[in-house]
C-alpha cells in the first residue's frame, strides 16, 4: 500500500500553533499514522456532511484535523488545512442505542435542581466519562 501524500497548508500550520502542546504531539502522531495508513480505525477518516469535499480525521476526543482530498497526475493528495475543536455529538445521539443506561434523579427540599447518577453497564460513571470515550481509548491502544 502506497503511503498517502499529505500536504500541510499555511492555515493548518497557523491553527496548529495555537494548540496546547499535548494536542500538538497528538497531531504529529496522527499525521504520521495517516500518511503511513497505519491507524485508520482510530483516525476514522470521514466525509463531513454539508461541507464541500471536506474530510476529517480524529486527533483526540475533542479535536479533528480537516483536509480536502485532491488529485493530480500521480494520484490523490490530502491537503490538510485546519485542525481544531470538534465534539462528536453524533456519538451522543448513538449512545442510547449502544449501551444500557439508567439514571437516578433525586430532588430534595431546599436542594436546587437534581443530582444525576449515570450507571453504565452496571458501573457508576461520572458525567465526564462517557462510555463512548472509554471504548475509543480501548480501540486506540
Amino acid at each position, binding site marked *: 500500500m502506497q503511503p498517502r501524500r499529505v500536504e500541510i497548508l*499555511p*492555515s493548518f*500550520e497557523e491553527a496548529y500553533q495555537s494548540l496546547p502542546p499535548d494536542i500538538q504531539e497528538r497531531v504529529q502522531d496522527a499525521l*504520521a499514522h495517516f*500518511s503511513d495508513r497505519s491507524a485508520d480505525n482510530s483516525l476514522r477518516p470521514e466525509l463531513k456532511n454539508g461541507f464541500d469535499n471536506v474530510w476529517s480525521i480524529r486527533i483526540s476526543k475533542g479535536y479533528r484535523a480537516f483536509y480536502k482530498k485532491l488529485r493530480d497526475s500521480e494520484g490523490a493528495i490530502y491537503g490538510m*488545512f*485546519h485542525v481544531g475543536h470538534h465534539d462528536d455529538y453524533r456519538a*451522543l445521539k448513538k449512545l*442510547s442505542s449502544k449501551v444500557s443506561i439508567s*439514571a437516578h434523579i433525586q430532588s430534595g427540599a431546599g436542594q436546587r435542581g437534581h443530582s444525576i447518577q449515570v450507571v453504565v453497564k452496571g458501573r457508576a460513571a461520572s458525567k465526564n466519562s462517557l462510555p463512548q470515550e472509554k471504548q475509543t481509548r480501548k480501540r486506540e491502544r
Partner: protein
Amino acid sequence: MSDKDKKSSSGLPSQVVKLDELFQSVFGAAQLTPNAEPNPPAVAAAGAYMQYVQQLIQRLGHDVQHVLAQVRDEQAIARMASDLLNAENSRKSALQRYLDVSAPPGEQAGWTALASRMRQTMCTELEAIRDSRLRLELFRAELINQQRGGITARIVLRGGTQIRLHFGRKHDHAA
C-alpha cells in the same frame, strides 16, 4: 422586538422557554413514570424548544452566509468563530447532565420518548453551533491560504521518500 427576535451578545437568538425547568421536569418524569403520557404543558414546552432549535439553525445559517459573502477580514472571522466556540461550550456545559442520561433501547414510550426526542434536539442544537463555527474556521483557512499561498510542507512524496515534519511552537518547524 419580540423575544423570538432578541439576540444575545454572541449573535444567537434568545431562548423562548425556560429550558432547565423543562429538562428537569421531563427527565425527572421519565424516571418516575416512564411510560405515562406526558402532560400537555410539557409537550408544548418541548415543542417550543424544538422550534427554537429550528430557528437557531436558520439564524446561524443566514449569519454564516452573510459572513462568507461579505467579510474578508480573517481576524474578524476568528473572533466570530471564537464567540461561537464559547457559545457551544456554554450550552454544552448546561446540557451535559441531560446528554449523559438516556433510556434503555427499545423501551421508549411516554415521558421516556419525549426525553429521548429532547436529547436528540439538544445534540442538534450543539451540532448547529459547532458546524457554523466550523464553516467560519474553514472559510478563514481558505482566506489564509489564498493570502499566503503555497504549501508549507509535504509529508510524504510518492515513490518512497518520506519527510517527517517537526513542528515548532514559534514557526520554527523544519521539514
